[in-house]
């Protein structure tokens, strides 16, 4: 069917436009990069100080930990970008109506947009931030191309999970007028359970057991642990199953809620 290919073309163009939009904000992105590197440096200093008391913990030595911290810092904007209220703002301003009436699926439209900017952030944040860590703290590159490939593959799942999650905590704005508090809440929960504050391996047993089952685990911790060589072999198949299920569940949930919200807009007689 020619119509279908036409659709793919449309989503591709949406992603491309979003990628190019990011390129325009050169200074904003440069300052964002500096902020990320600054936080990476602070966390590194704290970790170096903590490791003065002992040499390794939970199978991590200082170098593993620093690599973990820097890669997580490098992936934040790809997976759980701070202050993402783009969808919420269109709901508040009413612009969402024009997006809803576009001849495409509302969720996949936003998904494509976010894929475009995720690609931008991967090239212009992830890579330079990790290089910054290598330069400032001499963390080097772990493993070989096999673990990088595996990490890259799981990062695709992680990024898709992140998009579904941010879509969910933004779409609440259809029901709550002042959704800013929910956005903050969604972000801090994600920050905590993705391992951005403390590597998941360092959490006490009970908390780690819960966290490993959450979708946040697949967002950054899994790709990062593969990259640092802590996760490999048969465990990967299990992680794939667990996170793929989450991805399907969250995507269906996001699309379902979007459908309900769309009907609501129609009922209100926009």
């Amino acid at each position, binding site marked *: 069917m020619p119509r279908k290919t036409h659709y793919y073309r449309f989503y591709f163009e949406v992603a491309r436009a979003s990628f190019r939009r990011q390129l325009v904000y050169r200074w904003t992105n440069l*300052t964002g990069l500096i902020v990320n590197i600054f936080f990476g440096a602070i966390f590194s200093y704290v970790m170096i100080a903590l490791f003065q*008391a002992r040499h390794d913990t939970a199978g991590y030595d200082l170098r593993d930990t620093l690599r973990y911290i820097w890669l997580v810092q490098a992936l934040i904007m790809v997976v759980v970008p701070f202050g993402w209220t783009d969808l919420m703002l269109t709901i508040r301003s009413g612009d969402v109506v024009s997006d809803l009436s576009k001849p495409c699926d509302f969720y996949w439209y936003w998904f494509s947009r976010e894929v475009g900017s995720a690609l931008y952030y991967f090239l212009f944040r992830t890579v330079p931030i990790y290089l910054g860590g290598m330069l400032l703290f001499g963390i080097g590159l772990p493993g070989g191309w096999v673990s990088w490939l595996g990490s890259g593959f799981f990062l695709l799942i992680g990024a898709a999970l992140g998009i579904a999650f941010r879509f969910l905590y933004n779409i609440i704005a259809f029901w709550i007028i002042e959704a800013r508090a929910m956005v903050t809440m969604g972000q801090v929960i994600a920050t905590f359970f993705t391992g951005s*504050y403390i590597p998941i391996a*360092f959490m006490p047993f009970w908390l780690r057991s819960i966290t490993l089952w959450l979708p946040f685990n697949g967002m950054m911790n899994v790709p990062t642990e593969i990259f640092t060589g802590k996760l490999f072999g048969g465990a990967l198949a299990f992680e794939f199953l667990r996170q793929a299920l989450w991805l399907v569940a969250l995507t269906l949930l996001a699309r379902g809620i979007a459908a309900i919200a769309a009907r609501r807009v129609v009922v209100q007689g926009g």
Partner: protein
Amino acid sequence: MITGITGIISDLSLYRRLIGMQLRTQVQYKVNLAVDIFTYFLVTMLEYMVIFLYFNTFQTLLGWHVGEVALLGAVVSFTFGLAELFGSGLDSFSEIIRRGEFDRILLRPVGALMQVASNEFRMRRLGRMTQGLLMFLFALHLLPALHWTFAKLLMLVFGIASGATIFVAVLLLGATLCFWTVETTELANILTYGGREVMSWPLSVYNRAFQSIFLFVVPLAFGLYMPVCYLLGRPQPLGLPDAAAFLSPLAAALFAAVAYVFWRFGVRRYQSAGG
């Protein structure tokens, strides 16, 4: 001189009135406000729990024990919440510039800074202050041997007041930057959110250059960290004498003055985008 002082007094009473108006509006939506404050309380609590997670794995941080780091973190959190409460107008200044509203502000016969500062007053910041207060009490519980004196109590007040002043001054610097460009507003985040993170850990964690910057250039450590060291009875950073902590209000006042001069310069230089 006299007109200057009466000007300040009338500005202050207007500030009080404008803030009072905002308070009354926000209190109208009681449920909304309660949810907002509670969310911020939970969020800041989650951030703070990281200290205990670290200390679950590691026993000390360069000789600091969990109670001491917890107390430091609580004071920093409370102080930051206080600064956010009074500084939210400055924090969202880039919006005022972007919408071209600053022209209207300049036309009014009242101080521009006062209008900008009273533009927003977010009561949800009380959530962070509540968290800081509760965690301060909890930290005291973890530090049964801490001996209080009048000097230490005074120092606590000094630390919170100076720290909040410096954080607000940083927000003012960030706002001033908007006169040149609104694209780099995130730079101020290095010193606000970043500064909060830096202050939450013992300063000896960082390298010397870093320590000197936060002591003498953006004196958050001078204003906030040194008083906390004094009341915990820990040595001051870079071998400074213990009594130096009494100078923290001076450091804060100096930094705030520099920020204000910079702001005045920015206002004079400001040219509306709207031509």
